[in-house]
C-alpha cells in the first residue's frame, strides 16, 4: 500500500487540513508560551522559560490541575455507573420504557451555557428551588456555590446530570447489539440477573465501555462552561479548573504569554493521562476480543 503513490495523493488534503487547523495553532501556542505578550502596550518579547518558572510557583494553578484531575475521575465514574444503571433498566421491557428514555435525554439537549444558567438559579440559596425543597423537608440549607469546599462538587453534579444521558445512549446501544445466546444460556444454567450482568453482559460490553469512557475522559479534561457560568472559578478561586484559570489569565489579566504557557502544561497533562488511559483501554479491549 505504501508503494502506491495514489495513497499519498488521497491522504494529502486531510494531512494539510490537520496541519493548518491543528498544527499551526499548537506551534503558535508553544511560541507564545516563551514570550511576554502585552496586548495593551503592543509589546511582544522573548523571555525563554520565565513563564514556566512562574507557573511552577503558582499554587493556584497547581491546585487547578489537581482539581481538574479530581473532577475528571469523579464525573466520569459517576457518568459510567449511572449511565450503565439506566441502560440496564431501559434494556428491560416495561410500560413507559420509551417515555423513560425520552426524559433521560433532556439534560443532554441543553447547551452547556444554558444548563449552567439554569443550575445557577437552581442553586440560589435564597430563591432557588433546591433550598426551598430542603426547607420544605425541614433539612438544613446548603451553600451550593458559596462554600469554597462545596462549590466544585456542585459543579460536578451539573456535569454528571448533563452527560450521563450520553453514557446511557452509548451503553444502551451496546447492550442492544449484544448476542442474546450467551445471556439465554446463562439464564438456563440458573444464573440470576446480577450474575448474568456481572459475568456475561459486562465482559461482552467491555469494548463499548472503554470507547465511551475514553471519549468522556478526554472530553471532561476540557470542561469550561459549567465552572465558568456557575462560579467563574470562585468563590475565592476554590472551583478553578485548568481551563477557567487559563481563561482568567488570558482574557481578564490579558497575560497571553503566561496563559499560553499554562495551556501548554494543561495540554501535556491531558495528553499524558489520556494516553495512559487509552493504552490500557485498547490493549485490554483487544485482549478480550482476541
Amino acid at each position, binding site marked *: 500500500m505504501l508503494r502506491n503513490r495514489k495513497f499519498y495523493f488521497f491522504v494529502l488534503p486531510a494531512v494539510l487540513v490537520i496541519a493548518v487547523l491543528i498544527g499551526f495553532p499548537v506551534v503558535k501556542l508553544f511560541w507564545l508560551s516563551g514570550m511576554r505578550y*502585552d*496586548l*495593551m*502596550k*503592543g509589546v511582544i518579547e522573548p523571555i525563554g522559560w520565565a513563564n514556566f518558572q512562574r507557573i511552577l510557583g503558582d499554587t493556584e494553578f497547581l491546585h487547578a490541575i489537581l482539581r481538574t484531575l479530581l473532577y475528571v475521575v469523579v464525573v466520569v465514574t459517576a457518568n459510567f455507573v449511572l449511565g450503565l444503571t439506566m441502560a440496564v433498566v431501559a434494556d428491560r421491557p416495561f410500560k413507559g420504557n420509551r417515555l423513560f428514555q425520552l426524559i433521560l435525554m433532556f439534560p443532554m439537549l441543553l447547551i452547556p451555557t444554558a444548563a449552567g444558567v439554569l443550575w*445557577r438559579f437552581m*442553586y*440560589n*440559596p*435564597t*430563591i432557588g428551588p433546591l433550598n426551598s425543597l430542603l*426547607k420544605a423537608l425541614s433539612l438544613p*440549607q446548603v*451553600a451550593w*456555590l*458559596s*462554600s*469554597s469546599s462545596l*462549590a466544585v462538587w456542585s459543579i460536578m453534579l451539573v456535569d454528571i446530570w448533563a452527560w450521563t444521558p450520553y453514557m446511557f445512549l452509548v451503553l444502551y446501544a451496546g447492550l442492544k447489539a449484544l448476542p442474546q445466546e450467551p445471556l439465554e444460556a446463562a439464564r438456563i444454567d440458573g444464573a440470576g440477573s446480577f450474575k448474568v450482568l456481572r459475568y456475561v453482559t459486562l465482559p461482552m460490553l467491555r469494548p463499548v465501555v472503554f470507547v465511551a469512557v475514553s471519549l468522556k475522559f478526554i472530553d471532561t479534561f476540557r470542561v469550561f462552561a459549567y465552572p465558568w457560568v456557575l*462560579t*467563574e472559578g*470562585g*468563590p*475565592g*478561586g476554590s472551583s478553578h479548573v485548568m481551563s477557567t484559570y487559563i481563561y*482568567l489569565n*488570558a*482574557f*481578564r*489579566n*490579558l*497575560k497571553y504569554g503566561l496563559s499560553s504557557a499554562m495551556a501548554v502544561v494543561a495540554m501535556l497533562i491531558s495528553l499524558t493521562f489520556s494516553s495512559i488511559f487509552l493504552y490500557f483501554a485498547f490493549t485490554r479491549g483487544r485482549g478480550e476480543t482476541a
Partner: protein
Amino acid sequence: MRRGMLIALVLAGCIFLVGSAADETIDVVNNQGWTVSDTGWAMLGDPNELPGIEVRLNEFPFADMLGAETRELQLGSGAFDVLMGTEAWMPVLAPFMTPITDFVEADPTVDLQEFKDSFFPLVLEQHSTDGIMTSTPIMGGVQIGYYLKDLFEDPAEQAAFKAEYGYDLPTPNENGVLHFSNEGQFLEVAQFFTRDTDGDGAIDLWGYVCPGQWGQGGCMFEDRLFRAGFYPWALLNEEYKCPWGSEYPENWGVVESIARFAQDLIWKYKVTPPEIVQYAYTDAILVYLSGKAAMSASWYHDFWGQVNSDEVIADIGETGTFSLDFHNRAPRAGTFAGFWGWGIASDTDSPQAAYEFVKWWSSEDTQRRMIEKAFLEGGGIYVPPNINAAAWAAGMGYIPPASYESTLDDLYTLPMIPELPELRNAHRGLHEQLLLNEITPIEFRQRSGETIEQIMTDAGYYD
C-alpha cells in the same frame, strides 16, 4: 436577442439602483446582553433615525470586549468602525481613535465648545486624553441602593423602629433620596429589617443584599475606597503607588476597617446572607425583586425601569433609592462613577458614517427619547452624560433619584493605565475570601497591597 438585451438592461438598471440606495454599513462594538443599549438598537430599527447608515453589531461579553478590541486594533484589521468601552479603557483605546473633536470641528452644525459643555465635567475628563476629547460618553452611572419603600413607610414599622432605637427611621430628602447619617445607622436599619417572617428559624427577609462575586463585588470595595478619600484613583495614588502599600502604614487601618465592615455584615451582624459571594448584581437584584431584601445596592440604575413596572410594584411595592454616602469618611470622599463611551477607530473606512452614528446617539434629543422609551418599556436605564438630558430624566422620574443626585457630587474613576485589569483582579479574589471569612481584614489589606505593589513594580513604574 432583443428580448435578451432588454432583460439584461433592466437587470443592470436594478442593480445600479439597489447599489445606489445601499446603506453605508458600520461595525459597532457592543456589550453582549447589556440591556441599557437595547433601547438604542431598537430605535435604530426605524430607518428614519439614521438614514443611509446601517449599523452592524459586534457583540462581546464584557470580560472579553477590551481584549477583542485591542487585538483587532493592534493587528490593524479595521474590523470595527466604532469602539465601545468604559472610561477606564479609554487611555488604552485612545491611541487607536481619531478624537471626536476633529469631527465636531469639521461639522458646521455643531459648536465644539457647546458640545463639550453639554457633558458633566468629570465625564468629559474621563473621555479626554491630554486635554483632548477622544471619545464620546453615552451612558453611565454610580452605585446606588434600592429599598422597599412601602416597608420603610409603614407606620407600624416606623413606630417599632423608633421604640427600639430611639430615633425615627430615615426618610428621603427633597430629591427623593434616602441618606443614612453613618454606617452605624445603616447597620441598625439593616438589623431591624433582618427577620424570620414565618417562624421557621431561617431568615426570610435580609436587611441588605449586594453582589459579592468577583467584578461587581470588587466594585463595592472600590467605591468605599473612593469614599475613604483614597485620591485620585482608589487603587493608586498620584505616585502610582498603592495607598495602603508598605510605605503608607497610616492608611492600613482605613482599609482594614472597610474590609471588616464588608465581612461583619455577613458574619457579625448577620444582615447579609453568606451566599452573596456567588452573587453578581443580576443575582442580588433577583433577591431584592423577590422581596427577600429590604435594601440592596449595586449599579442599579440598570433596573430602574424594571422596578417601576406594574408587575414588580404589584409584587414588592414601590422602590426608593438611597445613596452610599454613609461610607464617606474623608473630606475628599467621592463616588466611583463609570461612564461608557464610543470612539471612532482611526482605521475605519467610514469615518463620516461612524461620526454620524455617535453624534445621533449622544445628542440630547436622542438621549431623552431613549431614556423615556427604556423607562416606559421596562428596559435598561442609565444616567445620560448630557447634563440637560439627565436633569430632565431625573425630573420625569426616568432615572433613579440617587443616581442623578450622586452624579452631581465629586465623581472619581480608577487609574486609566494598561495595568488596570490586573490591579482590579488583585483584590477581587481576596475580597471573595474575605466574604467567605477565610481571611482576616488584616490579611486582606496585606496581600492586596503587596500584590498591587508587585504589579506596578513589574510594570516598571518604579523599582
